[in-house]
């Protein structure tokens, strides 16, 4: 396995060090930046596989860094923020960020999110099957099964599952999910049923809907497919 490069952008040296410690390992090379300008420069030269971006940068708004980066880089962006309103998070995700974490975050959680994002960028989009624990999603046959048992899904539930699973590790906003699943086929009011469809889907694919392992709720923001790690 080739070494992945991760760019850590934060103006606080302590945070940079903490993230550095949490992510550095045999398979990852970390380099960091303290300002937005420096981040864009090193992202251009180093071509990182992942960017961990703090929002409170001294020289430019984090959301602008996010947008600029997304303009020419496919690297997943994980945002860290200490000032967090749900609107801010949604705006960030819509601007191209893949996931966000609010400070103070737990290191274990950070590691898990980074792993999920890296796995997705490594896997690419062209895999025929997505496996997550006991759940198998066959993108070619358009079926889902739990422990070998086929699950009956409505067309909307299938689209939901496919959208979330092919974006595993990314937090998708309600709006993003809606746009992808309905593709402009329904008027705005259907958007409010999104959560109802998710609840039905969960009851079909999650073993315990109260402790979902696949579809994680990001309250006030959207949903994230967390593929259970394979042995």
């Amino acid at each position, binding site marked *: 396995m080739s070494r992945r490069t991760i760019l850590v952008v934060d103006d606080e040296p302590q945070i940079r060090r903490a993230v550095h410690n949490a992510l550095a390992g045999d398979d990852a090379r970390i380099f960091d930046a303290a300002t937005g300008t420096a981040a864009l420069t090193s992202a251009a030269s180093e071509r990182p596989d992942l960017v961990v971006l703090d929002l409170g940068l001294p020289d430019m708004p984090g959301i602008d860094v996010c947008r600029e980066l997304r303009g020419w880089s496919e690297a997943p962006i994980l945002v860290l923020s200490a000032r967090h309103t749900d609107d801010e998070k949604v705006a960030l995700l819509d601007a191209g960020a893949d996931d966000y974490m609010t400070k103070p975050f737990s290191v274990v959680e950070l590691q898990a999110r980074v792993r999920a994002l890296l796995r997705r960028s490594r896997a690419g989009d062209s895999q025929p099957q997505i496996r997550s624990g006991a759940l198998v999603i066959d993108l070619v046959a358009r079926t889902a099964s739990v422990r070998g048992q086929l699950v009956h899904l409505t067309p909307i539930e299938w689209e939901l599952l496919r959208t979330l699973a092919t974006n595993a590790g990314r937090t998708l906003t309600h709006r993003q999910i809606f746009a992808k699943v309905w593709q402009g086929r329904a008027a705005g009011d259907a958007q409010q*049923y999104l959560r109802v469809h998710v*609840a039905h889907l969960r009851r079909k694919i999650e073993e315990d809907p109260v402790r979902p392992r696949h579809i994680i*709720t990001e*309250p006030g923001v959207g949903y994230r497919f967390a593929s259970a790690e394979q042995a």
Partner: protein
Amino acid sequence: MTRPPIRWRALLFWLGTLAAVTAVMLAVRGNLDKAHVTLVLLLVVLGASAVGGRTVGVAAAIASFLVFNWFFLPPYYTFVIANPLDWLVLVAFLITGLVAAQLLYRAQEEARIARERSVEVDRLATLGAETLSVGSAEASLAAVTTVIRNSTGAAKCEVHLRGAQHSALVDWVLATGNAAAQQQDGTVHLHSARPTEAELRALETGVVLALLLPLQARERVVGVLRVESPQGLRLDPARWRFLDAISYYAALAVERAQLVADAERSEALRETNRLKDALLASVSHDLRTPLTTIKALAHDLSALGDERSEIIEAEADRLNRTVEDLLDLSRLNAGALQVRAEINSVDDLLGALVQRVEGSVGPHRLVVSLPPEAPLLLGRFDLVHSLRILANLVENAAKYSPPDQPIEIGVARHGSHVAVGVSDRGPGVTLGEEERIFDAFYRSSSVPDVGGAGLGLSIARRLAEAQQGSLEYGARPGGGSVFTLRLPAVDETALMKS
């Protein structure tokens, strides 16, 4: 309308003049035609009317009529009239005299009223200018009372504003918008703000020492004008009209004073809120950044096998929750909390809840009763706020109940609401404190201090109410507490049909 008093002196003067003129004309009666006599007498009648008023004029007209008949119409010195044509002259003279007297009186009266009106308009204009041009609101109120006192001749003029301590009578006027008059004999007459003439006449039979008028601006009673005079106040319709108009100006002044005060207050409030927001944002940033470092370092320590690292992490989380509480409380107090009531499933709420709290309930087992085969429960609520409420309840339950007892979470549909209950086997709440536990900073006397600022439940209840829900405490059968969060329910069938 009151009758003007009869001017006796003018009457005597003009009767005297009539006598003198008659005497002169008698001396030359042989050379006079009837027309000369009537013209001269008519001059006397006009003079009497112009100077002495209507009563004197009419008296002069009648006296002239008698004089004319007695002295100048043959046969002389009788009221008998020989020539029937003389009747015509006589009656024409009488009518001319009376009409002239009346017309003159009316013209003069109109001129007088016009003069009074112009004085009134002058006063009101002064008042308007005073009310609106004086710098401070207090100064404009003071100016209004001065103008009212000067123009009504009252000894005292006060404006009572809403909100202060008043006499019962002032309060009554404030509450009803009616007027009140205090009489010298101690009685109080209560009237509508625009009394009828009959009511005014009834008032004038006594001496009105003080008058209380409602100050109305835009259909709202903003204060009471009290005008006082130990000599008694004149209250004819014109006076009343003037007071009515003047009290409108006073009302405008009061309203202006209040608007200025409101504007100053809201400007100060806005500034305070802006500062508070800036402070909150920087406090939240400045507190969370070091907490992140502390948690990360604790994690590094745990890799070295130091068990204390877990405590450090847990305490950092607790500190973070306290920061969150304070931020939410100040948002709630500033009315800056956004509520997004959207259609959400209870599954989603409980799933997010378990995910959030499972790490922070320590040794407690979390038992969630949500049978997968039960129908989906839906509600219209704010997921983020509801999650916060429930997380708070679960963390509280974990704080207070024995470690071997599970914390149970149950859901049910109660009519138009979805109820989520969080039950523990803790000490429960002392009788009589069931509501007080929802007060900010209130700590129950019955339980050991387990840390926390006592904000959680108060915030939780306010968050529940902000989304048309409720949060109640109940004693749990067999010991412990049940906190029930109720949120507006939505029916799936109705939803999908619409």
